[in-house]
């Protein structure tokens, strides 16, 4: 009697486990269920923005930096024009700011360095779970966008990058709330030296209150858009399009 009951429970548990696993995989592939889970992303964004307002990300002291800042994503860019620019120290290179702006801008590295600078020692959090602390310096994004003059329909700031995964170019996007946050900078320097290729030379985005994949490296062009629809996969970033990662990466 006891044995029967025990074996029944055992069979039941194994069956429930199997059902649970295959059931979860089936739910994972179910569009409606995924959509339901994705609605949590918007809830998370609204709740987090309510909690943090304009608060700054924690800034650290020089003694608290990672001795060795891990490189992630692409460490090398194959594009021929990029390699030529890299070889010349980005002398003739310029960042373009265009799209829904009144005055499209072309900003060389010297022009970016002449703008008022912000330096910050912040923690970089990868979506995988690791963190590294480094020092970043560059002009704030807000004044650059203000200089270009946003048209009324501009809602998203898209960062077009020189690196690719296979045949797909990397890109990222943020909205105007993060774009005008004081710690959102276009960093050309890391740890008091010009950015290395592995860390995104000549320019990378720092958007300190979001995860690492939002911090686009090798930024070549900034485009102001009304919507993310119609751009590559339409989800606002390479990993969003190709891995279904969340566009809002505050957690």
């Amino acid at each position: 009697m006891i044995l029967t009951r025990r074996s029944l429970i055992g069979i039941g548990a194994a069956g429930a486990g199997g059902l649970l696993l295959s059931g979860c995989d089936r739910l994972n592939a179910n569009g409606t269920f995924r959509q339901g889970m994705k609605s949590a992303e918007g809830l998370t964004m609204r709740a987090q923005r309510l909690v943090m307002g304009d608060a700054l990300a924690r800034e650290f002291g020089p003694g608290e930096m990672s001795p060795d800042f891990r490189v992630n994503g692409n460490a090398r860019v194959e594009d021929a024009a990029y390699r030529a620019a890299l070889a010349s120290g980005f002398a003739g290179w310029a960042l373009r700011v265009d799209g829904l702006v009144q005055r499209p801008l072309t900003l060389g590295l010297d022009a970016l360095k002449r703008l008022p600078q912000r330096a910050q020692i912040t923690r970089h959090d990868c979506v995988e779970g690791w963190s590294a602390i480094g020092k970043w310096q560059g002009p704030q994004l807000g004044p650059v966008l203000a200089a270009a003059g946003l048209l009324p329909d501009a809602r998203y700031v898209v960062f077009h990058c020189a690196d690719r995964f296979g045949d797909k170019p990397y890109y990222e996007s943020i909205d105007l709330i993060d774009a005008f946050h004081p710690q959102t900078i276009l960093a050309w320097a890391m740890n008091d030296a010009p950015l290395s290729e592995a860390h995104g030379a000549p320019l990378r985005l720092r958007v300190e209150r979001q995860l690492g994949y939002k911090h686009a490296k090798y930024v070549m062009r900034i485009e102001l858009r009304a919507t993310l629809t119609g751009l590559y996969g339409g989800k606002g970033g390479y990993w969003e399009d190709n891995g279904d990662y969340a566009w809002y990466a505050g957690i």
Partner: protein
Amino acid sequence: MQSVPGPTPRGGDVVKRHGLMTRLWHWLNAIAVTVMLMSGLMIFNAHPRLYWGHYGANPDPAWLDLSQVNGGIPFPGAVTIPTDYSLADARLWHLAFAWPLAAALCGYLVWALLSGRLRREIVPTPRDLAPRNLRDDIAEHARLRFPTGAAALRYGVLQRLAYSAVLLILLPGMVLTGLAMSPAMDAGWPWLVDLLGGRQSARSVHFLCAAALVGFVAVHLAMVALSGPINGMRAMLSGRYRLPLEAEQAE
């Protein structure tokens, strides 16, 4: 216990054991904790190393390094959501189910506090914690002898300690350490991540709390199985519980 038939309930009586709130919360947790654990193990697979402090990545010393286990994917598909490696999908599940888990925990904590259930039935009393009582309860558990008759209406000290730890330490700990890993929350509530000693410490404590919860669930299921699984299951489903027969009744 909500209501008891007759003045002195005895073995064999069917009594009202668990209120509706407790039963709803229990089963919501059974689902949500399972999903959080299995999707969490997949997220851990993305970077199977744990550190102390604010930063920690591959170049830094890890206190737990499972990156050589099972080809770099320490937790196999049998225990993860989804089965096949996907950090993005695991995050989708984890960050969606975190909402009902956290909301229900807050709701239940408030209800248990205001209704007096927390103080009356869950937190151990000084008398419960008396060394003799503790020793007796441990001895009874070791012999797999469980309370019978009217004594089965009240949680023993080991049960109270276990349920208090889960309700007041482990589940709130999971939520708070989870929030402390969010760069946005760290901007909004810097005291939380500082209290935990940094984001990588928060990640380590998150993992340790999860391990403790797994330990609780294993012991909990074993105790249910050993102390009358049908009766226990019925009590948590319908609320009605048949008091186990006392020794003199069984004879």
